[in-house]
């Protein structure tokens, strides 16, 4: 039986992991390669890197980070943030990432999903979705809208329709981030996660709101997610991945044993 995946997410800015609170007040919290190694040793099933380097000229720094990570850990990892073209994808994949995620670039040019899937395979195309609850309307039947620019720009896209469209275009996985839940530590957006995860036939990673192992349990059972993204709850030592995994395992969630 397939295990549910626990995936730490590292925001990386100019080669350093940062506490990326809404892209402001960035605080350096460590070396991404060392942190990736620590999570690898601790039983992370996968790692997500999100490049929040603002300056285009400094994006090569991220490629160097990816290269070092690939020589250090031997589990899959993905890279997102600022991926706009097929060349961006190729750079990241050749440097050793297993997957790339596209978010706002796919909103602006959906064909980038199919181009990436054709060139590199669906298995490495992750569609990142930032979602806000807006209430049901004719324009947004599911009540959830896709937003970009950290939630500041509404796109007019219905989240459910966009997820299905992304799957049709060749995305192999969806990373579903609730902007409403993000940073609250009050738990994942379960209604949204279940809505999307049961509608598509590709795996869904839930993101945003994790503060307690119970939240992961809820989103992996009630929310029907295939994987759960975690960040601050492990970055600052509140919990470790072995603690989270034993909490889940004791409650009947199939997880990969640590070590």
């Amino acid at each position, binding site marked *: *039986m397939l*295990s549910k995946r626990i995936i730490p997410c590292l925001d990386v800015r100019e080669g350093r992991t940062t506490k990326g609170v809404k892209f402001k007040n960035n605080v350096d919290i460590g070396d991404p390669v060392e942190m990736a190694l620590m999570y690898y040793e601790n039983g992370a099933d996968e790692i997500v890197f999100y490049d929040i380097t603002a300056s285009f000229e400094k994006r090569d720094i991220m490629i160097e980070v990816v290269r070092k990570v*690939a020589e250090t850990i*031997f589990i899959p990892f993905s890279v997102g943030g600022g991926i706009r073209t097929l060349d961006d994808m190729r750079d990241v*994949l050749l440097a*050793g990432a297993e997957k790339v995620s596209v978010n706002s670039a796919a909103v602006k040019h959906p064909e980038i999903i199919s181009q990436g899937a054709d060139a590199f395979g669906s298995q490495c195309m992750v569609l990142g979705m930032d979602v806000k609850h807006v209430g049901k309307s004719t324009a947004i039947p599911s009540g959830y809208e896709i937003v970009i620019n950290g939630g500041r720009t509404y796109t007019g896209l219905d989240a459910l329709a966009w997820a299905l469209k992304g799957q049709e275009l060749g995305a192999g996985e969806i990373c579903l981030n609730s902007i409403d839940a993000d940073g609250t530590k009050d738990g994942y957006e379960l209604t949204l996660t279940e809505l999307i995860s049961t509608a598509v036939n*590709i795996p869904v990673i839930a993101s945003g709101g994790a503060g307690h192992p119970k939240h992961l349990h809820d989103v992996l059972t009630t929310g029907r997610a*295939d994987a759960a993204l975690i960040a601050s709850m492990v970055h600052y030592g509140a919990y470790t991945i072995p603690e989270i995994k034993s909490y889940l395992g004791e409650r009947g969630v199939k997880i*990969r044993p640590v070590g």
Partner: protein
Amino acid sequence: MIAIIDYDAGNLASVSRAFSHIGVPNIITNDINVIESAEKVVFPGVGAAGSAMISLKRLGLDKALSAALNSGKPVMGICLGTQIILRSSQENQTPCLGLMAGCARAFSESFKFQGITGLKIPHMGWNRISLRADHPVFAGMRPEDEFYFVHSFYPSPDHADQVIATTEYGIEFPSVIGVKNLVATQFHPEKSGKPGLRILKNFSGWNPC
């Protein structure tokens, strides 16, 4: 020296990095002479069976792989490499290498046939394998060890005794196949943490004769 066959099928560097990490000399190559003189051969790959077969034939690597198998040197298939060792793939009904009798089957077809619903495709993530019998390449493996899979098709050899291990995902499917000097995994040992690296290490020391 281990030759990792390069036929434009995905990121082969990850396989090379994993071998290098455990101190096993290796080279990514499409040079038939290098493959012929290598002690062992790894045949990886991600992507579609059809385009992989076109590349293999164009580079003459179909014959090099067949020669490697016949020579008795250890050969390891990984993921797509494992599937196209077989006679054909249900993926667009692609004729494959035919180095082993059998075909690559689609989860979608098998699920439909057996009335299984609600399982996502691809089978993506970590899962266990159950060995049918001891095998030197899997020495030291614990039953609870898990391996990283990402695939929509699975290998299905005609001969049951060529199934080395199986995995459960809706159905019980062959996740490791092999015969004599060939061992082929559907999962990615190079992305499967320490249990995966142990398999690569075991392979590097495997002497099937």
